């Protein structure tokens, strides 16, 4: 018995150390970037900076504050996440709820399920999608970033399965009490599904925050770019063999500014993450029927 306990303790220690190492490995690059952004350009460019700033300087951050493009892109990203999150979650809920019902109660259910699944398997491709967006006159508007990906079938599946896991008795008793589908969705199913809603909200949010390619394709002005598109344009290394003017050459010297922008862009999502993550903890549903 005693040996079992001590071996368990040993296992705990080993696992803790392994996780600690893993955590540090994940954290090191971030610390390096922070140290880099706080160093003087000359020190940073000579590759001396590892985990602690050398010749401490806040110049890179003051530069960003004065750089109107960064702020503008930041606002576009916030707007995009705000709109995208609310629209996406609403549409997902409204789609997942009926689909979670049995075929007996929702006749064409199978048809619709396959309808959505097919879109998961086949996509129009870049150019056709672009042409659709153009035809709807969405180019260069925030809606081009929000609407095309608003209904994520994967999220619907997630939500749908969660709804199905809810005891049917809850619905039935609500019906008996005279509730309609809207009431059941918003007063019963939704509150019980907060963990999965939080999950898809997190997915959507991170997805919107990180997306950059659509910004580049659909937006016609750099000042309409969301933050990640803007960052992408400043952090990519130019192909040296294609440089044919001095402006491009000079551009590669501002690495402290680039790292500072990466840090600032990271902050919001880091702040939000822990708050949403606690919703991942499940088990809320288990108690609801027994009570």
């Amino acid at each position, binding site marked *: 018995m005693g040996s079992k306990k001590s071996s368990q303790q040993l296992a705990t220690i080993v696992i803790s150390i392994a996780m600690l190492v893993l955590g540090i490995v994940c954290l090191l690059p971030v610390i390096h970037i922070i140290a880099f952004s706080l160093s003087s350009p000359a020190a940073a460019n000579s590759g001396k900076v590892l985990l602690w700033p050398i010749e401490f300087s806040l110049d890179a951050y003051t530069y960003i504050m004065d750089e109107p493009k960064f702020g503008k892109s930041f606002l576009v990203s916030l707007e995009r996440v705000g709109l995208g999150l609310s629209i996406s979650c609403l549409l997902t809920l409204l789609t997942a709820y009926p689909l979670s019902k049995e075929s007996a109660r929702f006749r064409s259910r199978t048809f619709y399920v396959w309808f959505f699944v097919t879109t998961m398997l086949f996509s129009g491709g870049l150019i056709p999608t672009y042409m659709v967006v153009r035809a709807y006159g969405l180019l260069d508007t925030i809606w081009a970033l929000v609407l095309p990906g608003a209904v994520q079938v994967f999220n619907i599946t997630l939500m749908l399965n969660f709804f199905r896991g809810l005891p049917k008795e809850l619905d039935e008793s609500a019906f008996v009490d005279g509730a309609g589908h809207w009431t059941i969705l918003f007063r019963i199913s939704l509150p019980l599904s907060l963990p999965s809603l939080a999950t898809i909200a997190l997915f959507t949010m991170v997805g919107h925050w990180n997306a950059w390619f659509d910004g580049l394709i659909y937006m016609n002005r750099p000042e309409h770019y969301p933050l990640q598109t803007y960052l992408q344009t400043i952090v990519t290394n130019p192909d040296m063999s294609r440089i044919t003017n*001095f402006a491009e050459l000079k551009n590669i010297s501002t690495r402290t500014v680039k790292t500072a922008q990466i840090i600032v862009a990271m902050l919001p999502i880091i702040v939000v993450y822990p708050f949403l993550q606690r919703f991942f903890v499940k088990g809320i549903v288990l108690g609801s029927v027994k009570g």
Partner: protein
Amino acid sequence: MKKRMGKVRIMVLIVALAMVSILSACSKENTSEPNTSNGAKATNSQPATESASETTNAESETVDPLGKFDPPIEVKIGRTADGFKFEAGESIDKNRVYDFYESDLGVKLINEWIVPGDQYAAKSNVAISSGNIPDVFMVDGIQLRNLVEAGMIEDLTEVYEKYVSEDTKKTVDEDGGYAVNAATIDGKMYAFPAVTQGFWTSNMLWLRQDWLDKLGLTPPKTMDELVHIASEFVKNKPDGVDTYGLGVSKELSQFVVNGFFNGYHSYPFQWVTDSDGKIVYGGIQPETKTAVLALADMYKAGLIDKEFGVKDAAKTREAVIAGKLGMVYSSFGYAFSNIKDLYVNNPDAVLRAYPMPSADGAPAKAYVGPTAGSFWVVKKGFKNPEVVIKLANFFTEHWMVNPKSDYGTGKDSGIMYWQYSILQFNSPLLQVNEHRRVKASFLANEPFDKYPNTSNEYFYLKGMYDYAKNPKDNKNADVQNGWMYNTTFGTPNSGAEVLDYYFTNNQTMTTPLKIASTPTMSQKMPTLTKMEEVFYTKVILGEAGADDFDKFVADWKKQGGDEITAELNN
């Protein structure tokens, strides 16, 4: 029963979707057609005006290359805008340069889209694939070919002949006709070439002069001397830290050590003319084998960073700045990047450029690449295709021949208004000529305000004086810039001076290519280049040897190389 119904529905749905996707594929292929028909219609609906203008032209016979459009026309453009600054109240859509175009040329420029330079390819590709291009915009050689094949752009042969100004023609032809040739497909000129310099691909040897002096060494004339210097650098650690001999990074195809190969008269990743006057690929010639094996020997001797295969050019620059590396091959503009920080960290650092040493008696020749990689095209059906030529004339006249200070650089703000202009191009020898002027002025001790403050020479010369006055004042931003200008444009042994040396001594190998790309080239060249890069890396690391070279050559030929060679020689 119900289940079967479901299945039927699914089948119907899948079939329907399949049809939709097929249909959409069809319509994608046809995208160019509506454009062409639109274009045809547009030209058809315009016969009256066109013939009218032709007759007026025929009557007057003299065409004013800078003639104003009356009434003014609107031109939708796609363009780049990187790091532009504006005076209060101005923007890229409304500024003094755009107003100038409108008032003096009768062209109202409308930015259909604006994109940062390094994303231009992605954005313009989407525009082309979706069949929705601006009236006037810039494309690369491959896109030009695609646009011509899809019939999406205007033939400019006639308007070019008719409207091009003397000065514009002089600049465009300065490279001996490459640029115009590259813009011509099947005998028709489809674009105005944005002429630039071909020597950005030319390598030279950059050395820490203070290290050479410290160790009592002289700049290398032969490859053996180069290896000797590299080993002396490694042995003596002139800056007191572990030192690499020769800078090499993983992007071999981006000309990071091409100068070394040139020393063996080898031209990897580039096309050259052989003794029979035929176009051949430099990477598969026997000289390349010798060169890459010599590089492998240096690696074995510990003169090259052991980890070069995973380090990019930014890391090599870091090593130079940190005083860990004193010998690199690069272009004449090497010091114009963050290399400046070498001097910021160490006031004694002196970086000098030298012509490339050679393995035998014959001098190494620097490779001069294409002088036009970008082309301005006009959308099919646009009423005034001559606008692109007139815009080029306008640029030549007001920014090159008679620069207007109002549209150059702001006196107090330092804002560069000239950047707002479009259809920019410049002389294929621009920086060499600038260097010649600046050097002469510097040696004659002429004041820098001899040059207008809109010109580059003004800043270069001023910087060189700043540096010459206080060479050790490395914390002063003006002197830092002076160091950079002096190293790039000054004398002795600046980057541009070595270029000048190459050109005056005929030590250049100019690209034999007369076109920007061939069909197979646009398809297979990226794969072949990657293959070549991987092979050289393996040889340098010692994983492949001399015997594998023949196999590489055979593979290269088989996987499209032969095809491209044949196309180029046709």
